[in-house]
């Protein structure tokens, strides 16, 4: 069996499972975000009275942090009342940041767990050897009532990553290259498993970016076998007991790919699809009105740090808005302690409260018709960040920072000597 199958088998109370089988799994942690009041509504519509375990649920006020309309404020108010009535202690309010980063910061994510959230980017947690997957509001309400959810045991696709990243190339470029090669539906219903020597050179932050973006190829979950880097990261954070599962020798993958990244150049997903990926150099000189750095994909300390290296002693180009959104309060505090925020704000960055911000086009940096944005977030669907006729290029945090300096798409490598 694959490690992911072992996680699901254990959660379903079974010794073995086979691909395609439907199993009902105990969920270790369910996370609800503030976009979906329907979660609470479905809970009551199904006859829910008390949640199955208040300690196994997290509520996050992250997508609307802080509320910018009366309706958003009303929805958040109802979430807070629900948590109070149900004695749910883990309500992370608008000061905390994006769910996926906050759960990691707080040590709530550990190897071998089943983590389900009302957010598609829950695949992020494969970086810790967890089964993390996104669902909708009513599925989450089923978990809130029963503590369980059904899953189909998925096929697994294997990516063996070799080589070393060149200057100005980040984990984001690797995953964009893969999505561009294989398409936005290549991983639908499947798990993406990353292995190989490249991982030994990637921090937990970079691994989270890799796993986060597997959502953009349709994946149900991702997986990286926990190693010394994982254990070092979670040692002082995670208090929960955990078990590390591993994949049996001879496990049969649905497909296998090897990527040597040594000659990889910075990549961009051009409008209007995440699999419309080309080398960044094809777009050099294209003016951008907004450069967006942040989110669960690209707003960690390492991401802000590379931007600070690029912007140190420089100014954001006149006519370009450079929005910086740390992924969480912990990220913001660390970035402040290291002087990163100081550098970015002095250079002309607009600082935005930790949260999802403009990524999904709800607030804090919406694009006008005809504008072009380069973003370290995950998606460039039509209308994703505002007007349907705005153009969005998805790239690495380094590519975003280089564009902020020049006011147009630029190769980040030249700023990283």
């Amino acid at each position: 069996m694959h490690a992911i199958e072992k996680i699901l088998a254990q959660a379903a109370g079974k010794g073995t499972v086979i691909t395609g089988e439907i199993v009902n799994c105990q969920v270790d942690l369910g996370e609800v975000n503030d976009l979906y009041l329907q979660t609470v509504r479905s809970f009551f519509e199904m006859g829910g009275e008390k949640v199955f375990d208040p300690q196994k649920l997290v509520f996050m006020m992250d997508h609307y942090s802080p509320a910018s309309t009366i309706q958003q404020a009303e929805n958040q108010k109802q979430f807070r009342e629900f948590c109070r009535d149900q004695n749910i202690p883990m309500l992370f309010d608008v000061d905390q940041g994006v769910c996926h980063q906050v759960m990691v910061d707080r040590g709530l994510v550990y190897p071998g767990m089943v983590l389900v959230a009302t957010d598609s980017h829950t695949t992020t947690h494969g970086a810790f050897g967890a089964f993390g997957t996104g669902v909708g509001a009513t599925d989450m309400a089923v978990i809130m009532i029963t503590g369980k959810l059904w899953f189909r045991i998925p096929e697994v696709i294997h990516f063996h990553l070799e080589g070393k990243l060149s200057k100005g190339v980040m984990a984001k470029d690797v995953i964009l290259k893969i999505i561009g090669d294989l398409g936005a539906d290549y991983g639908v219903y499947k798990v993406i498993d990353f292995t190989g020597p490249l991982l030994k050179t990637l921090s937990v932050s970079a691994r989270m970016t890799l796993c986060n973006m597997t959502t953009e190829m349709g994946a149900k979950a991702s997986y990286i076998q926990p190693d010394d880097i994982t254990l070092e990261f979670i040692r002082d954070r995670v208090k929960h007991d955990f078990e590390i599962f591993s994949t049996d020798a001879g496990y049969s993958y649905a497909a296998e790919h090897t990527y040597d990244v040594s000659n990889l150049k910075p990549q961009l997903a051009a409008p209007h699809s995440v699999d419309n990926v080309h080398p960044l150099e094809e777009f050099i000189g294209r003016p951008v009105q907004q450069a967006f750095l942040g989110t669960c994909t690209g707003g960690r300390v390492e991401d802000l740090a590379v931007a600070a290296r690029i912007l140190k002693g420089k100014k954001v180009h006149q006519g370009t808005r450079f929005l910086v959104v740390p992924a969480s309060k912990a990220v913001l505090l660390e970035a402040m302690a290291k002087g990163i925020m100081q550098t970015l704000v002095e250079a002309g960055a607009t600082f935005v409260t930790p949260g999802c911000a403009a990524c999904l086009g709800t607030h804090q940096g919406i694009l006008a018709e005809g504008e072009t944005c380069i973003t370290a977030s995950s998606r460039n669907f039509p209308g994703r960040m505002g007007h349907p006729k705005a153009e969005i290029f998805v790239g690495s945090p380094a590519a975003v920072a280089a564009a902020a300096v020049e006011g147009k798409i630029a190769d980040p490598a030249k700023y990283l000597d």
Partner: protein
Amino acid sequence: MQKIITGKVFVYGANIDTDQIYSGRFLELTDAEDVGKHAMEGVDPAFVREFRPGDIIVASTNFGCGSSREQAAITLKVRGIGAILADSFGRIFYRNAINLGIPLIVCPLIHKMVKKGDLLKVDLTTGQVTNEVTGAKAQAQPLSDYVLKILESGGIKELIRRQIASPA
């Protein structure tokens, strides 16, 4: 559950994401009727005006990819969608729609067999799909037993309600 569904089709391409089905701008809306007003706005501004209850959406690959927003399924449910047929679906959208009792049918290359306005007949039990205008037929993938159980209950809410009322 209605076993045979017949409806007029609306045809779309590949990778129709949930932002196009239901824009992020409207995620704060909570009343179903309000959510229903913005169906497919990002891909087909005429959809709400032209779509009639019982009509069917046909798409190419990866329909409903992207965000986990259940509103993308709710908005189509409110419009009275009869069924959605596609080469493949985004997985969260698939679960969300089935949970609401919307039949989602995986039927490879179905989008090539129909054009907008054709009348399509879908037999949910056999998986037989017929274009009533051209006579073309296709065989869809069968629904899994569990998915059929959800649809037959009229959605997951009714299924869970019954479980709560009489625990096994």
